[in-house]
């Protein structure tokens, strides 16, 4: 109990140190550049405290649950030698963590609004919701496929740079085909997907797997899953744009 409390306190001090830069930047700009004090300081300060508390608890919980569980599952699955279960796990992990991603939710809604305002889709609540949902499904499938590709790469020891660079070439080719309105959203959705819930779990899977497979270096082979997860959504969303353009 005492150990848990001191660990929690250490995480809290870490959060204070992390949050300070944001407070300073906004404060400096508000006071020195804009030259007027922040309106409604009390709710903002309360919100800042919530961020502090949230960061602390999140990191503490992460160490307690997400990292050990993901690593152990990946290790067990890798040692079992069942490629089928491992790849199923990989796809579900990517799809499941992405479909529930808060950052993706926010951006998908934003994208639907902007698409409607630009005349790409009809401006009704239903078509907006449908567009946002389809976008999320597209991105979730893309991340699922990305994790499967990444796991295959770790198992087969394919070259990460070669695969990523091929992906870059595909992105450039797709950009010339895709409608101009989707390009910005597509590029952004690559980085949106890999957020707070997804990153730790996917990183744990990669490192656990690379530690378990003989002859793999966790440093060299364990990372790279997130790189796939931030590349495939760009391709899938541009593909989604091409398909919706035709239908």
């Amino acid at each position, binding site marked *: 109990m005492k150990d848990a409390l001191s660990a929690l306190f250490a995480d809290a001090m870490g959060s204070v140190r992390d949050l300070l830069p944001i407070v300073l930047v*906004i404060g400096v700009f508000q006071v020195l550049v804009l030259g007027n004090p922040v309106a409604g300081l009390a709710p903002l300060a309360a919100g800042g405290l919530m961020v502090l*508390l949230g960061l602390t608890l999140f990191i503490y*919980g992460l160490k307690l649950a997400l990292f050990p569980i993901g690593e152990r599952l990946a290790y067990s699955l890798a040692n079992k030698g069942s490629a089928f279960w491992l790849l199923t796990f990989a796809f579900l992990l990517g799809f499941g963590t992405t479909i529930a991603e808060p*950052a993706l939710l926010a951006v998908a809604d934003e994208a639907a609004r902007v698409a409607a305002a630009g005349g790409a889709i009809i401006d009704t609540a239903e078509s907006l919701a449908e567009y946002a949902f389809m976008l999320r499904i597209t991105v979730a499938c893309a991340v699922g496929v990305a994790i499967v590709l990444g796991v295959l790469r770790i198992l087969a020891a394919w070259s990460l740079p070669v695969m990523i660079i091929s992906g*870059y070439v595909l992105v450039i080719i797709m950009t010339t085909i895709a409608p101009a309105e989707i390009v*910005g959203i597509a590029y952004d959705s*690559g*980085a949106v997907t890999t957020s707070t819930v997804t*990153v730790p*779990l996917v990183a744990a899977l990669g490192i656990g797997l690379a530690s378990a497979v003989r002859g793999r270096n966790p440093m060299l082979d364990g990372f790279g899953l997130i790189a796939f997860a931030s590349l495939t959504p760009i391709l899938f969303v541009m593909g989604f744009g091409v398909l919706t353009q035709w239908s």
Partner: protein
Amino acid sequence: MELILTALGILANTALDVLPVAAFLFAFQRIVIGGPMPNRNSILIGFVFVVVGLGCFLIGLEQALFPLGRLMAEQLTAPDFLGSSGVDMRWHDYYWIYLFALALGISTTLAEPALLAVSMKAHEVSGGAIHVWGLRVAVAVGVGTGVALGCFRIVTGVPLQYFIAVGYVLVIVQTVLAPKLIVPLAYDSGGVATSTVTVPLITALGLGLAEAVPGRSPILDGFGLVAFACLFAVISVLAYAQLSVLRAGRSATSTPTTQDSQE
């Protein structure tokens, strides 16, 4: 009262977000591996901490950081503040927004919990060769530069893909030159850097900027800041590794390199 209801709603949403992940992990443990989950209690407690922590964090984000970021974007593009009539603006008239974007990108990335988690992991698996703070600062500087350049692109209206294509070429060249050990980590850092804190903040910044600058449309020009942040994080981590190697090579050639001690 309303605040409590909002808080409960956000907490419920967070739980719904994390629940499928937890359920699917437990199911996999049972079906594929079999047997009970080891340390089940501490893992359950950990999940509760993750949900409550993430929930509090999102409340704080919506209460404080998000409106403040949006407010800053509006204020810094206001014609009154820029001291002009709002017509015939040149790209350099918006210099405050570039400075703000740089500072915002750096500070939000430093506060990113996912990046901290991965940095600790990288420190661990590299046997201490990669420093937690070194990596975080490299990613933060990359994200800051990326967001600032992204704002410049929105103001000038140059198509996004030109910048991205040049960035890709740079990454390819760096991949060839940088130490092999860092490459997968560098590719990952782009996605890691831009998560729940950074994304809503800079998405709002970009869309607000595209609305404020005459002649720009949000759908064509407003997006892309997140993509820039992601790409520049990769570039700067590769550069961090190249610099580390250069410095290590200059200071001592007798001591074994970190790659050797890793084996």
